């Protein structure tokens, strides 16, 4: 494990906000994240004015809910993605989406920095896999994750690398679990 900047920048910012209520880190994160979020939310179908409102709401939610961010369980970008989708829908529906209960630690696993790194590693592989998709495949994936496809439409799309992604994450976590057990 390299000690040189082991976590992604987004994770570093989020942890600074979570653990130290670090406004400077939050400001830097805003500069990086807000324009991308705005682009993403517009892709999700919001007009620019509403998109900006949603971005502000998402950023404020990140600030307020940072205590819930656990890099052992979710990559920073994955956590932010879910907040962005939830807030977008809550604002449109004016009603809170049902969200699952927090699950405790997986029996047999101790939260550990290697877990975080493994998840970040997965994110890198994932980005590479997405980058290698055919443009039309990529568009289909995008549509699915911006809420543009119903689940029937998603299930009709065969050949999406979702299964691979899922098994990768599971394999990664499974391997990690074994390694952790070996350490004890």
């Amino acid at each position, binding site marked *: 494990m390299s000690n040189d900047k082991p976590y992604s920048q987004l994770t570093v910012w989020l942890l600074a906000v979570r653990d130290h209520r670090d*406004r400077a880190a939050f*400001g830097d994160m805003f*500069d990086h994240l*807000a*324009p*991308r*979020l*705005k*682009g*993403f939310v*517009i*892709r999700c179908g919001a007009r620019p004015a509403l*998109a*900006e409102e949603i*971005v*502000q709401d998402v950023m*404020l939610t990140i600030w*307020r809910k940072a205590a819930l961010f656990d890099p052992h369980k*979710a*990559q920073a*970008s994955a*956590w*932010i*993605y*879910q907040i*962005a*989708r*939830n807030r*977008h829908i809550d604002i449109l529906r004016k*009603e*809170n*989406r*049902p*969200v*699952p*209960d927090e*699950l405790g630690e997986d029996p047999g696993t101790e939260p550990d920095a290697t877990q975080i790194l493994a*998840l970040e590693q*997965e*994110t890198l592989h*994932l*980005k590479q896999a*997405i980058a290698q998709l055919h443009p039309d495949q990529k568009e289909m*994936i*995008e549509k*699915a994750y*911006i*809420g543009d*496809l*119903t*689940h029937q439409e*998603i*299930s009709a799309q065969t050949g999406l690398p*979702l299964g691979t*992604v*899922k098994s*990768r*994450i*599971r394999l990664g*976590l499974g391997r990690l679990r074994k390694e952790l057990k070996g350490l004890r």
Partner: protein
Amino acid sequence: MSAITHHIPDPMIAAYAAGSLPHAFSMVVASHLSLCRDCRAALGAHQAVGGALLEEATAVAMSQNAKSNLMARLDEPAAPEPVYDAKGIFPGPVMQSLKGRPPRWKTLGMGVKQNILFEDEMGSARLLYIPAGQAVPDHSHSGLELTLVLQGSFSDETGRFGVGDVEIGDETLEHTPVADAGDPCICLAATDAPLRFKAFMPRLLQPFFRI
């Protein structure tokens, strides 16, 4: 928790993450995700895909004062948001829908009771209470129906469903679920279309019972 054998199909978990499921289905999916580590891992994978797409979204400039406006709001007190934790057999998403109160059962006859939790033009969700040994009236579906077991179990032509299991029914499934011996079976059921009961009650009465 380890005994769950009937899960949410993967595309539906992706659709849940993306927010494209009807609210009633989201309640069932979020409830199952509260009980099932496997599907939770799948949700994590889908969120990761969403996150990867978000990170490489084309940047669109925010308006000039956006940042200073937001930084000025960081100390604003957040409006208190009620948090509904799981209580007894009911996962958080069900408690949220019940607004933290116990269910208010309405009798449907034969000991079967229900509590409608949610209804809109996209579908409805309700809790069902079925005494042991009692058949849920034979019904066919005109749409998609998700049934999550919260207490007890039921069996039908397709298998046995215990706590945490989800049965997915559509036009092709005509079945007679029967609550197994033991505790009364309590389920969270969501549908995107009105159910058509064949024998249990006259069709005319359906709007009255909203089944």
